[in-house]
């Protein structure tokens, strides 16, 4: 079954058409990148998939289920997770609580059970805490569990964001410019991490990225957006030599 399918996806912000006729078929386990100049509508696509905006037109089907009109938190619980272009951690919460909150849907205990420290509360919270620490451990953050997240250096904040996204137990992960602001060594490590979590957590990944090293290095397919339009779609090798892509990035004169 197709993991994610969008058809004629179109979104207007007032008089601006941010996304126009975006069609995507994402197969389970694939790693597809969306590239394009700033303002091309890439992040809008993520916002449409996660229900932050409701598309003006078009369909979004995730594992056979229609996502259009569903509230965001339901879409997330259903198996879609994302990270953000500018890191959006809960800055005043600890590293632990940032990941713990992503387990919200799993905590089935009631407030009064918590007040009385009944077994269901203590058991579920202990399990969530353990799962949280295991995830933090994967990203070398377990020692920092009690640190307030705004005090982390930038690279660790980026890693924490991925850990937090994984805590919602996604099958589809949307990464919005994960390599932004990273140095070459960090980028190298990030590429390994992305491939590793895809294997480890059986993920399908949709990636927005500006750094061509990352896109060309790990994406199996690339879609190129410009002014909301899909101007190219193909393997990295095809995209690199695509005249319209070169035009969009470098301008008509260069062609």
């Amino acid at each position: 079954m197709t993991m994610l399918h969008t058809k004629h996806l179109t979104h207007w912000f007032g008089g601006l058409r941010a996304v126009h006729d975006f069609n995507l078929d994402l197969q389970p386990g694939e790693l597809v990148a969306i590239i394009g100049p700033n303002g091309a509508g890439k992040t809008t696509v993520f916002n449409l998939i996660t229900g932050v905006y409701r598309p003006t037109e078009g369909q979004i089907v995730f594992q056979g289920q229609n996502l259009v009109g569903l509230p965001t938190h339901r879409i997330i619980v259903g198996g879609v997770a994302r990270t953000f272009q500018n890191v959006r951690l809960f800055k005043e919460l600890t590293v632990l609580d940032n990941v713990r909150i992503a387990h919200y849907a799993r905590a089935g205990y009631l407030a009064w059970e918590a007040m009385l420290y009944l077994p269901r509360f203590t058991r579920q919270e202990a399990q969530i805490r353990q799962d949280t620490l295991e995830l933090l451990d994967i990203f070398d953050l377990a020692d920092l569990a009690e640190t307030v997240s705004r005090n982390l250096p930038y690279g660790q904040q980026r890693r924490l964001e991925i850990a937090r996204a994984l805590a919602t137990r996604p099958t589809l992960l949307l990464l919005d410019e994960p390599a932004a602001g990273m140095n070459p060594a960090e980028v190298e490590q990030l590429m390994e991490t992305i491939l590793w979590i895809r294997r480890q957590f059986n993920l399908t990944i949709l990636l927005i990225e500006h750094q061509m090293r990352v896109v060309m290095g790990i994406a199996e397919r690339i879609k190129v957006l410009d002014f909301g339009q899909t101007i190219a779609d193909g393997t990295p090798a095809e995209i690199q030599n695509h005249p319209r892509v070169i035009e969009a990035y470098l301008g008509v004169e260069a062609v």
Partner: protein
Amino acid sequence: MEFYVQQILNALQVGSVYALIALGYTMVYGILTMINFAHGDIFMVSTYLAFFTSTLILGLASGLNPIVVFIATLLTAMFGTALLAVVIERLAYKPLRTAPRISAVITALGVGLFLENFMVAFKPVGPAPRFLPHLIPAVNFNIGGVTVSTIQIVIIVVSALVMLLLDTIVRRTMVGTAMRAISWDKFTAPLMGVPVDRVISMTFALGASIAAVGGTLYGMAYTIDPYMGIRIGWWAFISAVVGGIGNIRGAMIGGFILGFVEIFTPVFLPSTYRDFVAFSLLLVLLIFRPTGILGRPMVQKV
């Protein structure tokens, strides 16, 4: 010496009630950055819920253990008030979630006026002051010249317990973590699977049921009337601002500070100066420490 110990005890009693109400202001502000000016009147409604429940219970069965009557009254008032607050949020505030904050604040003032005037017009309530039936036998103990009543003990102990429970909820449970997360970033919280609307409802319900604890306790010690929510609501609001609005422990501290202002002003000044002292405290604090005692500095988000 006995005099001051006595006054401190009285201040703790009054301060407990202010603190319980202040928590509702501060929690709603924390999650929605909105001042729920109807909260004082929601507190007023809770005292009437306690009044009718206790009258009904004692009318039906007079020989019950006072502790059973007290707990039944308390729980009914908490539940009813929570329901009222959730309905108010859904009908009056939620449609204004994306409107400018001032619209929601004006609506809250309107809801408060509605509750006051509804209660005045509502025949079983009416404008006359009332007394709650005696839930707990009022016994005075004299300890070294200081008079302590059973009611005073119940007010202080129950308030302290409720505040401890709330602290547990906010710090340890998922809902509490969600409240803190939403107060920092409303946009990201749903993207982590947090149902923001439901957490907001729970915040209103929690704030209102804590106010109902305050309302029941208050009704045990003082007379109640449909306009009581105005003055007490303002004092609780000042408590929340003094402690640092949005901060839970701040609201507790602020409540006790205002309790001390209320009790100790008449010791040094004419008792009519109480409101003057309370509001002066607020103004001076707003000049020198606008975020309150424990408040976080406002960071302007881009």
